[in-house]
């Protein structure tokens, strides 16, 4: 298989996975909007139905975004590294099994813990759902773990095989054994670091799932509550951060093609992404800042790691992207605009995340938390995801932007910032998260948020429709 054929075929698979995952993304986003519409008082969902919807929304959006972004990162790597297309498809098949299991455990088993759950809630729901539904949900998580393990192992092995492990991690650049001309491109370094960091989190996640399944089979099996809470947050925190890091890898590879300038690896890039590896690992501890029995040193480290994470992200990646496009002569088509605005969402949401960690006593588990993570997912990672899909249709189908493409982008953007602003400000004023019915006196934020949420639905629907239309212009490859 020639390099160009391999790259086009990888792009084709990424396009296909992108089409399925963006539809899944839109569908599961819709469940979240329905739940928010109920919180805003426009409709009245029973709490059990609302929490099922919240579970479908959170796991569905997180899973579809992660899968789509992984496929696109694979595409971004394909110019430099040969990855296994079979493994990509196996990974996608396992995610498919997770989707079916998720539908069964929520819609038939009435499971409703949401993406972030704590032991032993899956098995102690006060009669809301059966234990088998909790166990099936854990198998959904296990499917995600196995799928991402396959994907990330392939990245680490393939990059290391071509460039060597130390070079792929950027260590040879730091030690001076590589120069910017001989070092792997940033997409390789970022993908390898992301994959390795993610694999460590997957081990943690798999331990929590296995332990809980043992508990399900044998309720006398003892699990330390604080220990498993640490493992669950280590897994969940890193997994979602890796989605944004994979997006960064995509931007490092694709944005320079529009700017017409190189974005090469250098010592600063290598140091920054290795710092990000350490920072994101330490920062998971900020999820346990209200667990006063956690050792004090861990609490200090959690806050320290959260501040530390801001440095590589803003100093190197975000400022680097601004330098890249400034006076580059580029024209803004929709794809690079998505990348650029996605980085903006990362910066805005990241700032709020640091505030949450720094002053956690006031914001923990308030609406401020979904406020900050919706900013860097809904207006950050999702934008990079869509931008990369648009880029592929440009590259493979010669598609050009239409008025509808721009309407989709700007309505999504306006709606997203309206939704996240309402989350954040209701959190600042003390509204707890995950309340089926809002606390008295705090309903107004949810009511306003509903209008913006439906603007997001309009924007996302338009983007999906346009993407599927653009997809029809992409000709299938011979020998497919």
């Amino acid at each position: 298989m020639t390099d160009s054929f391999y790259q086009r075929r990888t792009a084709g698979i990424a396009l296909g996975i992108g089409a399925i995952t963006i539809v899944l993304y839109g569908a599961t986003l819709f469940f979240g909007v329905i739940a928010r519409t109920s919180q805003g008082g426009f409709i009245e969902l029973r709490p059990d139905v609302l929490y099922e919807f919240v579970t479908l929304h959170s796991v569905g959006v997180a899973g579809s975004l992660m899968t789509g972004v992984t496929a696109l990162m694979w595409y971004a790597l394909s110019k430099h590294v040969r990855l296994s297309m079979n493994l990509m498809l196996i990974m996608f098949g396992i995610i498919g099994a997770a989707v079916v299991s998720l539908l069964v455990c929520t819609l038939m088993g009435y499971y409703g813990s949401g993406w972030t759950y704590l032991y032993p809630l899956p098995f102690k729901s006060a009669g809301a759902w059966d234990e088998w539904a909790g166990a099936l949900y854990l198998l959904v998580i296990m499917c995600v773990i196995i799928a991402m393990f396959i994907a990330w192992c392939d990245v680490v092995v393939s990059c290391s095989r071509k460039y060597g492990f130390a070079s792929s991690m950027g260590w040879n650049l730091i030690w001076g054994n590589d120069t910017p001309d001989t070092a792997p491109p940033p997409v390789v370094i970022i993908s390898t670091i992301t994959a390795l960091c993610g694999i460590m989190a997957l081990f943690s996640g798999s331990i929590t799932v296995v332990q809980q399944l043992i508990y399900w089979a044998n309720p006398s099996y003892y699990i330390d509550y604080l220990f498993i809470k640490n493992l669950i947050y280590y897994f969940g925190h890193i997994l979602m951060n890796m989605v944004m890091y994979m997006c960064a890898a995509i931007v490092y590879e694709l944005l320079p093609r529009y700017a017409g300038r190189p974005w090469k690896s250098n010592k600063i890039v290598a140091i920054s992404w290795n710092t990000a590896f350490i920072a994101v690992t330490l920062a998971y501890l900020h999820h346990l800042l209200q667990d006063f029995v956690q050792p004090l040193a861990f609490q200090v480290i959690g806050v320290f790691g959260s501040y530390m994470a801001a440095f590589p992200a803003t100093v190197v990646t975000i400022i680097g992207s601004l330098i890249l496009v400034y006076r580059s002569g580029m024209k803004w088509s929709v794809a690079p605009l998505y990348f650029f605005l996605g980085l903006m969402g990362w910066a805005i949401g990241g700032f709020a995340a640091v505030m949450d960690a720094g002053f956690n006593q006031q914001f923990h588990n308030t609406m401020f938390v979904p406020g900050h993570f919706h900013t860097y997912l809904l207006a950050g990672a999702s934008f990079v995801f869509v931008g990369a899909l648009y880029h592929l249709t440009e590259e493979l189908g010669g598609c050009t932007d239409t008025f509808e493409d721009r309407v989709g982008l700007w309505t999504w953007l306006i709606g997203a910032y309206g939704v996240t602003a309402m989350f954040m400000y209701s959190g600042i004023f003390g509204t707890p998260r995950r309340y089926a019915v809002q606390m008295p006196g705090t309903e107004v934020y949810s009511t306003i948020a509903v209008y913006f949420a439906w603007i997001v639905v309009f924007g996302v629907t338009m983007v999906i429709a346009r993407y599927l239309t653009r997809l029809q212009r992409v000709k299938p490859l011979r020998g497919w």
Partner: protein
Amino acid sequence: MSHTIQILVGVSILVSTVVIAAIFWWVGSRTQPQQDYKSVTERGYRLRREYFWGLLIVSILLFGVGIYSFPYPQIVESRVTGKPFVVKVMSSQFMFDMSETEVPRGWVRFDVMANDVNHGFGIYKDGWLIAQTQAMPDYVNRLYVNFTEPGKYEVWCLEYCGLAHHIMMTEFEVK
């Protein structure tokens, strides 16, 4: 009770969003005319160095404030004057069982526990969240609060614990 932190964070979120959006708009609207990349990077790297040092100073300051305001017993106990009034709290789906529903002004220590799943223990006054900790089986989280204002306080669950999570609340009074 002071809500200074909430107000400052609320203002900083608004300001930071406007500033970040303005920077992106400013740069994004200046892709033309084309300039030599080397001269752009030289200027950009200089600004980046200044940003780095600025961020470092701000982070150290905020980190210091954050550590000073840590609510953990190891830190707060050194500031507690006199013997604190102790309230034992048992959390369960979907209620709080408090040993006392009237507490005196001054330092109060809440020994917060749970007997089924994880819960959150968030104390509210007039709609403002003033303190919180987690309630977890097998562990006791000790939360110190210095009550200066008498009146009715509400406690709401701040960790999702099941279908009736949103109605898990209780009240107590500071005399």
